């Protein structure tokens, strides 16, 4: 079991305190720090995640990090290749490369990208990017992009390319993702993730691959650990409300709800459903242990800073998690 951190960088206590927290993630033994990309919404105050990650590379030595995910359709593929190579070189090969098409029609719309072209454009851009990361010259003739013998001066440290990550929301995608050998963060409840992980693993084995080489399959949860259940849950409840407001901000501004209820709007059902795990070390330990078993994951992703959680609250969470929860998992 590895442990990771996911961060929306939703508006709260920003860059300086986040960087200090990230130093603590490294000390605590987390494997990687994953940062979201959002635009024109308080949900994501690191709209160019690469810029923040370049600072993360300076503040850490061993912690891996990456976007989760680059909204690939909002970049020129050459720009993304350049950024991937720079980050990988500036960190001695610590980049984890999350890719996606961008799920918010409002955000991609602001960039002038027609959401209807999303999947097709994304598939083509990803093909270009992987080709560009692995070849000396880039030639491509497609619907959205044409490249003729462009020299690829920049190269990543990790060959053929940094590990790929993908967000999965459907059980059916497990076969394809296993075939591509992609690391996955599954956006479902523990039971759903359990089905997904079983299917991914079966597909992986059916391809003749070993369990030991299984890519990371992760489940992400809000985690607040405090000295008592009461203290942790009241902080989590307070911060969750702000985070949830940020999550639905652009949808509400356009007069609609979330397209898919990825998480309950109210704190109590979210806590009950395991989307949020908050409490004393023993409460968090028991719940995560149970859910991780049900989910069959090998990557436990925590969101330790969100909403208006103070630096001290998050720091306390990290300390208690590392000391009293991690070893038991």
């Amino acid at each position, binding site marked *: 079991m590895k442990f990771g951190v996911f961060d929306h960088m939703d508006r709260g206590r920003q860059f300086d305190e986040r960087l200090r927290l990230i130093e603590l993630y490294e000390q605590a033994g987390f494997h990687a720090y994953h940062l979201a990309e959002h*635009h024109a919404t308080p949900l994501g105050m690191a709209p160019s995640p690469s810029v923040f990650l370049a600072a993360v590379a300076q503040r850490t030595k061993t912690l891996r990090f990456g976007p989760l995910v680059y909204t690939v359709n909002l970049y020129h593929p050459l720009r993304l290749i350049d950024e991937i190579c720079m980050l990988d070189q500036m960190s001695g090969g610590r980049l984890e490369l999350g890719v996606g098409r961008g799920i918010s029609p409002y955000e991609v719309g602001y960039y002038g990208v027609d959401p209807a072209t999303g999947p097709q454009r994304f598939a083509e851009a990803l093909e270009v990017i992987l080709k560009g990361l692995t070849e000396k010259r880039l030639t491509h003739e497609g619907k959205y992009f044409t490249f003729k013998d462009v020299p690829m001066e920049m190269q990543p440290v990790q060959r053929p390319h940094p590990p790929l990550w993908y967000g999965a929301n459907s059980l059916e995608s497990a076969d394809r993702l296993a075939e591509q050998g992609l690391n996955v963060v599954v956006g479902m409840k523990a039971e759903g993730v359990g089905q997904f992980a079983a299917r991914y693993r079966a597909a992986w084995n059916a391809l003749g691959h070993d369990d030991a080489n299984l890519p990371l399959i992760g489940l992400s949860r809000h985690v607040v650990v405090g000295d008592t259940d009461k203290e942790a849950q009241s902080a989590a409840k307070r911060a969750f409300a702000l985070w949830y407001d940020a999550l639905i901000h652009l949808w509400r501004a356009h007069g609609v709800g979330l397209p898919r209820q990825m998480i309950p709007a109210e704190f109590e059902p979210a806590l009950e459903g395991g989307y949020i795990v908050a409490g004393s070390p023993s409460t968090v330990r028991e719940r995560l242990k149970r859910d991780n078993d049900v989910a069959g994951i090998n990557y436990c992703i925590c969101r330790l800073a969100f909403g208006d959680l103070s630096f001290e609250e998050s720091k306390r969470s990290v300390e208690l998690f590392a000391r009293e929860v991690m070893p038991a998992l």
Partner: protein
Amino acid sequence: MKFAVFDHLDRSGPDLGRQYEDRLRLTEIYEWAGFHAYHVAEHHGTPLGSAPSPGLFLAAVAQRTTRLRFGPLAYPLGLYHPLRLIEEICMLDVMSGGRLELGVGRGASPYEAAFFGIDAATAQERFDETLEIVLKGLGAERLDHAGKFFTLNDIPMVMQPVQRPHPPLWHVTRSLESADRLAGLGCNVALAMPTHDAGKFTKRYRAAWEALGRAPADMPFVGNTRNVVVLDSDSDAVSAARRAFHVWYDSMVHLWRANGVELPRQVSSPDFDETVEQGYIVAGSPAKVRDRMLRDQSISGINYSICRFACGDLSFEESARSVRLFAREVMPALLPKDDTGPVRAATGTLARGLRWLGDEDLSEVGFLFR
């Protein structure tokens, strides 16, 4: 008079990770030595520029320094979506407590623009429209724009810069005629011109500035860029400068040659001695560099001295030594006699706070700085 550094981040060897770290250590030295700002270029598909997304490298610079200002010189606006640019500018400005210097340009190389699928013929129009959007968007609550290349409808500007209304603007130019327009915009200027031409430019810029009724004391920066190598003897410095010049020039000409043409002469002559004669390169002992820079400064009339201390295959030790000697023995002579500002205070002091330079560091660099 302020001093600054320009860096192409041209490729110096096979290990790019090492090069980034060496360059970052140099930015710590620039800060210590009292430099005002560090400017880094953006290039694509060429060994001339290993920071093709300069914002990423600058985010690292922001972590390694506390006072040094920094920025791209310049963002080729046509290669960015304006929203991405606004977001990146705001992030860098916030992450550095308002230390960003915002260089904007059309993009000098038609080949690099073509890689991105941009027709060089549209460069000026794209530049104008993108700059308009960026300046409109920085600090605004919402952004609306209907133009030839971009249509933006009521976009919430969640990201805001620290510096209002926006970070200081910079433009690179080799054209005398642009002086009036840039003075009108109040834009800082980085020239890449022979000394005498720079003199004509600053004169015209200053005249245009005063003709607009603006106070001479508020004049923006007008600087000229030089490759500077200061070592203990003239012969050491000139031979290092000559060696590095050829490597750097090869990077400069790389994409042009790949397309079957030579570098336009006004960008740089391939001949080291001719380039020295024009004043693009100043290399020598501290006394020689001081005399040449004093002379050139009086001819060019600049108020901003932009040095390139790292280029080609200059080693970290050579560049660090250059900066050290420049700060201690050249800078003070180039300052007006009555200057008591931070540059004067910083020059000639010993290295402090360079984290990587331990007390027991007796390596060449450690020794030099104690």
